[in-house]
């Protein structure tokens, strides 16, 4: 198992390294010179050249890549062209909005999906099962930013229960900050909950047909009890796998939802950086998100091996 994990860690590390190269190459060919963008249209050529030199933009591309990679290894993501502060500081600051939002959305989607999936699986083939499946079809089809707009219309502009957007910051009190994240969390969690409900239901139905569940039933265990005690535990493995894999999609999905609610998260940061040609910020955010994706994939694999002895034994 240790050898397999090492192999996977190496392979994922390599993926990450190639990803840095891809991100660098892709962003290096972006039209527009960040220095000209910062200085404006009427910039003096000499000042412009000096700024390009200060930013290291006059160096050859391969040299800039290795300098960037070296700093990256030391946790230094460079200095933002527009904000003139370290990119890592900006990312940490924005993560204080995006990360709680993503975690809350993940928790909410689980709270909705697991009971609903169990409910549908226990009543498979009946009307209530069909209703849940229908609702999940709808949930998957609703774009989260549209759902967010509807939430704003109903709960902010009509009922005035929540603010339509903005974020007061954690310094203003946890209660106020959490309140600002309620509607974005619901908007982000809905499609995720729909996907997880479907996975829970399918996994449970499949597990309910396994021999060990049949044995439990033949020992006289009630259907509800055998479902809870035997089937659900086994069915949760694929659910957790999908949940882990979806985590980064949630982080990326937050890019759009943050825009609807004007939340100062990673998503707003990256979109603003794109329009301002602040490529070093774009590079930083993208590499952090890709690293998160790769790390979560790896953690899911480890969790999967711990949770399912068949996988562990099969790979030793």
């Amino acid at each position, binding site marked *: 198992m240790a050898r397999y994990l090492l192999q996977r860690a190496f*392979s994922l590390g390599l*993926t*990450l390294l*190639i*990803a840095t190269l*891809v*991100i660098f190459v*892709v*962003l290096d*060919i*972006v*039209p527009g010179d960040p220095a000209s963008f910062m200085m404006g249209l009427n910039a003096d050529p000499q000042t412009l050249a000096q700024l390009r030199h200060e930013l290291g933009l006059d160096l050859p591309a391969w040299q800039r890549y290795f300098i960037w990679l070296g700093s990256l290894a030391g946790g230094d993501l460079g200095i933002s062209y527009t904000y003139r502060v370290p990119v890592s500081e900006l990312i940490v600051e924005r993560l204080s909005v995006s990360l709680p939002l993503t975690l809350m959305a993940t928790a909410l989607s689980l709270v909705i999906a697991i009971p609903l999936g169990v409910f549908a699986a226990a009543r498979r083939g009946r009307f209530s099962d069909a209703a849940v*499946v229908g609702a999940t*079809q*709808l949930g*998957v*089809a*609703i*774009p989260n*930013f*549209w759902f967010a*707009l*509807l939430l*704003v*219309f109903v709960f902010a*502009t009509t009922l005035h229960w929540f603010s339509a957007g903005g974020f007061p910051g954690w310094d203003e009190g946890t209660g106020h900050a959490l309140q600002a994240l309620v509607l974005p969390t619901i908007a982000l969690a809905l499609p995720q909950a729909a996907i997880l409900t479907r996975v829970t239901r*399918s996994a449970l*139905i*499949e597990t309910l047909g396994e021999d060990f569940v049949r044995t439990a039933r033949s020992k006289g265990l009630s259907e509800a009890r055998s479902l809870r005690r035997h089937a659900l535990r086994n069915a949760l493995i694929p659910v957790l796998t999908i949940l882990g894999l979806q985590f*980064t*999609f949630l*982080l*990326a*999905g937050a*890019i*759009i939802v943050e*825009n*609807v609610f004007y939340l100062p998260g990673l998503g707003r940061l*990256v*979109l603003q950086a*794109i329009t301002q040609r602040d490529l070093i910020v*774009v590079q930083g955010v*993208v590499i952090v*998100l*890709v690293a998160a*994706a*790769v790390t979560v*994939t790896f953690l899911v694999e480890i969790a999967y091996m711990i949770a399912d002895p068949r996988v562990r034994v099969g790979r030793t």
Partner: protein
Amino acid sequence: MMLLSAARRTRRLSPSLLAGGTLTTLIVAAAIVSFVWTPYDATLIVVENRLLPPSLAHWFGTDHFGRDIFSMVLQGARTSIAVALVAVGVGLLIGVPLGLLAAAQRGLFDEIVMRTNDLVFAFPALLLAILITAVAGPGAVNAILAIGIFNIPVFSRLARGSALSLWTRDFVLAARVAGKGAIRISHEHILPNIASVLIVQGTIQFALGILAEAALSYVGLGTQPPDPSWGRMLAESQTFVALAPWLALAPGAAIVLTVLGLNLLGDGLRDLLDPKTRIER
């Protein structure tokens, strides 16, 4: 032919196939009709008509420029469908041959294809699309490219996985004994046998493409004015949502119905082409 014979075999169509097929046909028909007819010119600005609620004259109301929303939704359908469809085409045309070749050649080529797929999957899809449109500039063509690139590994993985299991089958062995080369076998024997799986995945990717195009246009990186787009209509409606909620209703509902139709169609096709999965789902 394959679908017709499968339908004949099962003798009846599943409700999801019927509902999905009907919805998809209606939306595609609306998109086609918009080429020759819309109630009003979707780009025509009539300031005195701005923010009119739904009425007999303007079924879905008008926007802040006085443009007819129903006409914009109709034209938006063709933009969304075109972008998503071509993006699926890009994924199919590049991904499937890559997957088939990887399964036929194995070895180094297979390893390179699979690792490249892993690399693309390491980027959250929407982030990759945002990155590409940021580099190449906003617009429908670049949105196609951005969504299409993510479709390539989806189809190449699927084609490779499905093809691998077929390479050990007797009919492929017979073809090899007959002296046919790997490419010819992939084309003549493997591809027809994995077509149904590809069609089902194609409808799912089509639906995801509609959502992705809407999201990109919503953040201003997709379809650009004056071409109407559902995503951009939603972005423009945001400021007026308290004053004129109908601005957000029609394009949003259009996206939901299209994606729902395609997903139901995909489910129905899967039931039709692979009856084993019907009970599980």
